[in-house]
């Protein structure tokens, strides 16, 4: 085949890949067609990679094959992690993606310098800055999610000023490089400063904001790939990067809305500080508690039960016991649904995956906006390991730090049961007035053990 014909064939394979990417996302609209979406995505990516190996520019194969094998060797274990570990795996893959984009940008710089045009230098500079800060930012996020790093926001006085100065330094270096692309030491300095900024961007953000941060980093990783497409004039990268960036952006907006926060608030506000002070002024108040036996009796008599799972359920590994409870109640003719708050897990959609893993059918998982109208007709709302997303203070206490955050209206159910270890405050450190309502029963204990006891009571009573 002539080189020109080969190049055309490669280009057509990239066009085919782009079509595949678009269909993959389109078919993700429902769980029924989603598997087909993944398959077409796999085929599209495979075709593009295979075609690239025939590119006449590629003269050295040996090490590329080795690198692909190592990549697969790293990727397979990362594809087999536990479902509770998916958020940190995702953060790590944002880091890998951003790192690849940044490294290619750096390689392009060293190959092209000092003959880069101002325009090329600006593209490379911007791409490398975004890729680098996303790389370190994602590593910090993964560390926080894996609980290697402290989850609490790490803050100090004048932090925003220092962080923004660091970002300004990176951009200044880039501007100098545009006029003097041959200053390679300045380029190295720019990369180091951008890496540092990534660390400073994510360390002050608390664990509760991780769903937003992980989405934002997703968006940055996508845009760094798109920018790389601009640098290399590769349309397939521009498209894939734009799709990924758009996805991360939409998820960030959804997460921000779900927490009633703005982007700037997540990035620049140290959320944790306000709340620790807010939690202090609360006095001891009486709560009603119940045993597993009593809880089982109430559940068995109910017609409609809504389970409200939070990340605490997954931490306690209680989802399989919850499935047994679901089966046992469904068998008795009780209508059981699961109310999913958008930030119930540690990343967008995480709670759905955790429940699906426990074999709970997806048509029983209902989003917040859809299910909130059903609470007044619900006999029992059973809260397992969720706290702030059920806090009525978000609706009616203007002094609460979470005031305005959309919540699940569990307090409107006829009976509310809350499984909780103790009266300690939740992740955000805010007291929850839900626990002191007359209709609320506190079920003190470990989520897995307590749900197991309820299931046992139900089966012995039948």
């Amino acid at each position, binding site marked *: 085949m002539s080189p020109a014909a080969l190049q055309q064939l490669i280009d057509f394979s990239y066009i085919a890949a782009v079509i595949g990417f*678009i269909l993959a*996302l389109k078919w*993700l*609209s429902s*769980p029924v067609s*989603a598997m087909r979406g*993944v398959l077409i*995505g796999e085929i599209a*990516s495979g075709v593009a*990679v295979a075609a*690239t190996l025939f*590119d006449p520019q*590629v003269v050295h*194969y040996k*090490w590329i094959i080795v*690198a692909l094998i*190592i*990549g*697969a060797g*790293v*990727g397979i274990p*990362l*594809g*087999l992690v536990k*479902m509770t570990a998916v958020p940190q*795996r*995702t953060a790590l*893959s944002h880091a*890998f*993606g951003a*790192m*690849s*984009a940044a*490294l*290619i940008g*750096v390689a392009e710089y*060293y*190959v092209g310098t000092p003959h880069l045009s101002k*325009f090329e230098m600006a*593209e490379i500079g911007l791409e490398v800055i975004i890729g680098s800060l996303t790389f370190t930012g994602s590593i910090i996020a993964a560390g926080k999610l894996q609980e290697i790093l402290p989850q609490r926001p790490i803050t100090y006085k004048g932090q925003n000023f220092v962080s923004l100065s660091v970002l300004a330094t990176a951009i200044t270096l880039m501007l100098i490089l545009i006029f003097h692309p041959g200053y390679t030491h300045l380029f190295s300095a720019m990369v180091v400063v951008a890496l540092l900024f990534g660390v400073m961007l994510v360390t002050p953000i608390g664990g509760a904001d991780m769903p937003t941060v992980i989405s934002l980093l*997703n968006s940055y990783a996508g845009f760094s*790939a*798109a920018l790389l497409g601009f640098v290399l*004039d590769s349309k*397939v*990268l521009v498209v*894939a*990067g*734009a799709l*990924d960036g758009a996805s991360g952006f*939409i*998820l960030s907006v959804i997460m921000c809305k779900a927490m009633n926060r703005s982007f700037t608030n997540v990035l620049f506000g140290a959320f944790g500080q306000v709340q620790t002070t807010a939690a202090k002024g609360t006095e001891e108040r009486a709560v009603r508690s119940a045993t597993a036996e009593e809880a089982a009796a109430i559940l068995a008599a109910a017609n409609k039960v809504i389970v409200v799972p939070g990340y605490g359920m997954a931490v306690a590994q209680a989802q399989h016991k919850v499935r047994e409870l679901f089966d046992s109640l469904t068998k008795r003719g009780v209508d059981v649904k699961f109310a999913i708050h958008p930030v119930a*897990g540690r*990343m967008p*959609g995480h709670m*759905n*995956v955790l429940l699906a893993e426990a074999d709970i*059918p997806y*048509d*029983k998982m209902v989003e917040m906006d859809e299910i909130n109208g059903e609470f007044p007709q619900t006999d029992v709302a059973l809260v397992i390991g969720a706290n702030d997303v059920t806090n009525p203070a978000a609706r009616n206490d203007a002094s609460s730090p979470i005031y305005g955050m959309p919540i699940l209206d569990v307090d409107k159910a006829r009976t509310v049961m809350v499984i909780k270890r103790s009266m300690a405050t939740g992740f955000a450190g805010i007291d929850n007035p839900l626990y002191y309502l007359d209709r609320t029963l506190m079920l003190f204990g470990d989520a897995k053990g307590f749900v197991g006891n309820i299931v046992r009571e139900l089966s012995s009573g039948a």
Partner: protein
Amino acid sequence: MPADFISSLFVFILAAFLGLELIKRVSPLLHTPLMSLTNALDAIVVVAAIIIAGRHETKVSTILGLIAVVASFSNMVGGFLITDRMLHMFKSTKAKKS
């Protein structure tokens, strides 16, 4: 401004708007698989990494390219694998009974 920049910008704008429309329609049920799938698709950066490494221009660019091949290909393999695993778990009530 170079012509290839303008054409890339056209492609970017169209793809970004298409992306926004497509992603809005993705069921919130599947937001986690969405993120892992877009991650795997984004790993198409590997094609650029293969070319940078394969052109063998300088030692530095080859080594950087090879590291990028490892990182992005691991994203591709791992991203598709975990998306596939997650989607296999989603079953409806009907599918469960049959």
